[in-house]
């Protein structure tokens, strides 16, 4: 059987791995919220540096996640490119000043403000990347559902996440098998056919996949019902771990970063840190 690595959980002994799923989930959410709200370069750089330190502690190697990093880089490059393509003067608007560094062609010039804006938007994305990757790479998928339940998500929704993780490899294998069998009947999605033909062809793979998934839903829900899922208002978790001192420290630290970060950001009455205005 083909090996299927879904979420790239990498088991290694490290303090980050030892934290409970709950602590890592809270950490990840706090980090996401902070990075979404703030546009303050100083806060973003601090978060990036902290992320890098934690990454080092986690024993995860860069090469373990090189593919993911590559994807992130491509995504960032494209995003920056499109922003510049559409609005080369956007930084000027945001930072309310204009220092031209050099012109390119037509309306496209390079200004310090535009570059600074690009720096910030890039920082906003990459300061979450190490934490998001660590969350995925260092958390046992078995802990996801119970962690969600502990921060207040209904256990039914939490269990849906667990089921998704459970059945991704099965669905993947089934997709592969069906598409191979259909390729033998001339159905090919990667070929040079017209878009419309390819969409129509995809149905030859998707319809059997969906019908079998609907069948699977029936079997799985019967199996769960027969073993008492949904009986009580709560449920306990075989894989849940008690929160230890380190977990509380991690949660406290993440929340502190969130609060301080937002405090610093809005201390000047705006979410932007504007070096150009101070220079004036």
């Amino acid at each position: 059987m083909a090996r299927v690595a879904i979420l790239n959980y990498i088991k290694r002994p490290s303090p980050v791995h030892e934290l409970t799923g709950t602590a890592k989930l809270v950490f990840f959410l706090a980090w996401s919220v902070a990075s979404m709200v703030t546009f303050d370069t100083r806060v973003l750089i601090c978060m990036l540096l902290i992320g890098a330190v934690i990454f080092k502690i986690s024993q995860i190697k860069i090469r373990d996640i090189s593919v993911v990093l590559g994807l992130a880089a491509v995504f960032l490059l494209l995003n920056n490119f499109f922003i510049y393509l559409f609005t080369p003067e956007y930084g000027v608007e945001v930072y309310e000043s204009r220092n031209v560094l050099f012109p390119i062609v037509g309306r496209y010039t390079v200004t310090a403000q535009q570059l600074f804006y690009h720096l910030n938007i890039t920082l906003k994305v990459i300061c979450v990347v190490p934490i998001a990757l660590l969350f995925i790479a260092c958390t046992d998928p078995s802990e996801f559902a119970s962690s969600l339940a502990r921060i207040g998500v209904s256990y039914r929704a939490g269990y849906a996440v667990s089921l998704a993780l459970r059945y991704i490899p099965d669905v993947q294998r089934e997709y592969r098998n069906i598409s191979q069998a259909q390729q033998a009947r001339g159905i090919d999605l990667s070929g040079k056919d017209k878009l419309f033909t390819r969409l129509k062809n995809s149905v030859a793979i998707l319809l059997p996949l969906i019908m079998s998934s609907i069948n699977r839903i029936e079997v799985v829900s019967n199996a769960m019902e027969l073993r008492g899922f949904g009986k009580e208002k709560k449920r306990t978790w075989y894989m849940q771990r008690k929160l230890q001192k380190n977990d509380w420290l991690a949660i406290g630290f993440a929340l502190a970063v969130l609060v301080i970060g937002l405090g610093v950001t809005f201390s000047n009455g705006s979410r932007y840190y504007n070096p150009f205005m101070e220079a004036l």
Partner: protein
Amino acid sequence: MKKLSVKSVVAIGIGAALFFVLGKVAIPSPVPNTNISLQYAVEAVFATLFGPIAGILIGFIGHTLIDATSYGPWWSWIIASAFVGLVIGLATMKLNVEDGIDSKKLIHFNVAQVIAHVLAWGVVAPVLDILIYAEPIEKLFAQGLMAAVANIITTGVVGTLLLLGYAKTVVKKGSLEKED
């Protein structure tokens, strides 16, 4: 909120697994660097069959898992994916595809999916992007428009054919006679 039935929980789990797997299958489209997103056709079909809450969570969980395994979550688009499931699920609640399907129901489904995609990619995603990432409006709406058009076409063609196929497959035995 009403409790989710066991069947809905499972439909969400398996639906999200499908969303994830299809989202990871790259089918190149004519426009460089954008792929045909078959997962939205499947999300639309599941939202029609299992309702709005299943629709929301399939989009939310599925998209989060895709992002988390590629470049970290881009929340605005994740929420837009969930929104697509919500709107289609709400708009098709009384459609009862299990009882058979006709052109009226298919039009209903398609109107719903067009509205859902236009709102999701034309309004929800760009507005959230402005709030979160303060990206320039021009870029966001161009991007949103492209996504909306691509997803409307995909859902319109693939989703419609899937619903048709589903309805014809689950239909009960009629009084069929052999022909020589």
